[in-house]
């Protein structure tokens, strides 16, 4: 059953691609698909961070604000400091993750409220730093410092390479390290994880820091693509990011799923979105579909959720 559940999103993805291709065969051209995937890189990076948070049975509603802060920091610092600006932007993301992790893991606030609050703080920081406007990144620093993210290598956009490298690293961490297993145990049930001597607070802190890091990376790449940093840059990302995780098959109850699943989930979302745009459904109106799909995916995977609270 579990093995079967893992393949459903892949089948869904193929079906979705075929359906869209039925409307427009040019959709299947490699360049179209590659363009599609590179467009989805920023969403995928944010969804990656969300994956582990959901994997341990929590949620992070602050990630879009964190991505925004990082994009603003990047845009502010990059003219003077170049690559260092990227490091600062990423560190800022990790710090916001640390705060969320602390408020949730150590102060024991429910994660959705902790991250809602931290998201408010991050949004304020983004607005304050940017002076409530979008900050342009000039062409020179952009090519100097961000070509790793927005250039092309082997004729494939670097966004795809970045996503794949980060995915590979994440998979190694998830599957091959004690930390990965600690996450799984924590998501499956805190009492058993505690008995096995797993450091619960530390694990939660690190998970939220990773989420912040990935969100920040998403913000950096986004800023590179759009040539600007802005406090509203990632505003439409939260729902698709959660939907990508859940559609991919990571259960909200925690303990099952993983980053590879999120890759499928993201692709599914992106293909569906392209398809809807193609048919002529307005981007905001697409939220109806995503909202419903999200609910459906959660309710279908809720079968074993009785040990989590269903409040």
């Amino acid at each position, binding site marked *: 059953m*579990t093995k079967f559940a893992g393949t459903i999103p892949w089948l869904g993805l193929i079906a979705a691609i075929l359906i869209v291709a039925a409307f427009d065969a040019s959709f299947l051209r490699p360049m179209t698909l590659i363009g599609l995937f590179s467009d989805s890189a920023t969403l995928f990076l944010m969804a990656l961070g969300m994956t582990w948070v959901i994997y341990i049975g929590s949620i992070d509603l602050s990630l879009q604000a964190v991505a925004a802060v990082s994009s603003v920091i990047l845009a502010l610092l990059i003219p003077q400091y170049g690559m260092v600006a990227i490091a600062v932007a990423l560190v800022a993301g990790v710090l916001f993750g640390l705060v969320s992790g602390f408020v949730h893991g150590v102060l024991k606030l429910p994660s959705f409220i902790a991250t809602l609050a931290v998201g408010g703080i991050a949004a304020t920081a983004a607005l304050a730093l940017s002076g409530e406007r979008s900050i342009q990144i000039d062409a020179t620093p952009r090519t100097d410092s961000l070509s790793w993210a927005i250039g092309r290598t082997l004729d494939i956009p670097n966004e795809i390479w970045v996503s794949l490298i980060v995915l590979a690293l994440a998979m*190694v961490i998830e599957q*091959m*390290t*004690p930390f990965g*297993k*600690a996450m*799984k*145990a924590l998501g*499956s*049930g805190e*009492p*058993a*994880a*505690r*008995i*096995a*001597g*797993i*450091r619960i607070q530390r694990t939660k802190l690190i998970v939220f820091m990773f989420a912040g890091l990935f969100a920040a990376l998403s913000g950096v790449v986004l800023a590179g693509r759009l040539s600007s940093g802005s406090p509203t840059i990632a505003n439409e990302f939260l729902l698709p990011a959660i939907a990508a995780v859940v559609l991919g098959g990571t259960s909200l109850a925690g*303990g*099952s799923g993983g980053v590879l699943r999120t890759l499928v989930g993201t692709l599914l979302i992106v293909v569906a979105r392209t398809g809807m745009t193609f048919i002529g459904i307005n981007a905001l109106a697409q939220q109806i579909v995503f909202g419903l799909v999200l609910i459906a995916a959660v309710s279908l995977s809720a079968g074993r959720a009785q040990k989590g609270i269903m409040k």
Partner: protein
Amino acid sequence: MLQLNDITKNFYGVQALKEVSLSVRVGEVVGLVGENGAGKSTLMKVLNGIHQPTNGSIEINGAKRVLRGPRDAATHGIGMVFQEQSLVPNISIAENIFLGNEARFVKFGRIDWRTMNDAARQQLAKVGLEVDPNTVTADLSFIQRQMVELAKVLTLEEAVAGNLCILLDEPTSMLEQAEITILFSVIRKLRGRAGIVFISHRLDEVIEISDTIYVMKDGAVVSRMEKAEASPSRIHHLMVGREVAASYYKQEERQRPEKQIALKVRGLTKAGAFEDISFDLNQGEVAALVGTEGAGSEPLIRSLFGLEKVERGTIELNGIDLTNVLTDRSVAAGVGYVPRERKIEGIVEEMSVQENIFLPLARQATRFGLFDFSRMAKKTNELMGKLRIKAPDRSTPCVNLSGGNQQKVVLARWYRTGARLFLLDHPTRGLDVGAKEDVYSLIREICAGGAAVILIGDTLEEALGLAHTIVVLKDGMQTARFDNTAATPLTPLDLIPHMV
């Protein structure tokens, strides 16, 4: 008014109740005693309609009835006061008394508080509790809440024709002596209009309040006696006594412990749980903690692992101070805990056999921070063979394993980490005979390897069959300590006087 005839209840092939017959008359207090797992709770749930008996019948006021649930049981006059209190803390007393039955107080969509509070006052008067029914329930003392629960059950008097039967499930477990006296006087007053079933672990109380006492063991009623014939030691012997083949625990295979001290516990105290516990444990020694339910063994063993904080005292394992540390520290220092709640705390059901075995101290199995999967596979296969873990393969999720195999996975985990102190909290609970014997032989092997074991057994016999040393607890105090050598084996009768 209530008569149970040959009630049998099976759960998944296990007989939880075996032909239990019991009768309650109006004006009578029936005491029900037995060890945990003897079937008392199951019997209560049958009486309350939560479980349906597999066989047998329930007669109420002479007519056979099928009880479909607590509400249905209530319409037949059976009310239950639960062990965990069943009052909603943040609403008023009156609301709690009429929770689910407020319809008659609603006028034009609004609750008529005055009528409701008046009606509540009438109910409270039955148990002699004089408090404002408008009080928030959380502000009441424990005994007051207990009285409110009784008052709530007594609302059945108005709703049901005929007499009531009130089930009291360990009502005294959280009460002080003076409060118990109050509760008993209320129970005696109520006796005139209801039959009462009283469950408690405190045998002297049961004898004091009951007219008839039923003793349960292993799902069956082993004795029914009148108050006059009862004494705590007699009842306790009936509760725990079992005939066991001498060879069952293979005591002759038990190794002698070494002389080297492994664990030092000094003056360990946790308010309301245990007080001033001190003992030493040698390498290769098994010490069993025995005592009645609530005597303090459980919190003690959890404190030794770092799951609960102690107020005073020290824990030292092979020279390392483990007082009030988090579990990661105690695991790193070589402690392994096998919890009583296997499915919740023991294994991670979603994880495979290998993942579970390599959950604690996983860093031991890594090279450059990454898992060395071939070494892990080899070790898992070795442990699965050695501990006779029956699973299709090492990647099988533990949820698909039987209870016995799950328990062996938990033991294998601590085997793998090389634990020097095993804390075994009811390690054979719910296991079949074969799995039990496997666990027993594992315990002997653990000792042979020089690790120390603290055991809370499912039965006294189990403790006596496995342990070199018996530590007896009563009300959180250590009342006795025995050496249990093969040459001079102890019997339950030696221990019981120190337990009750």
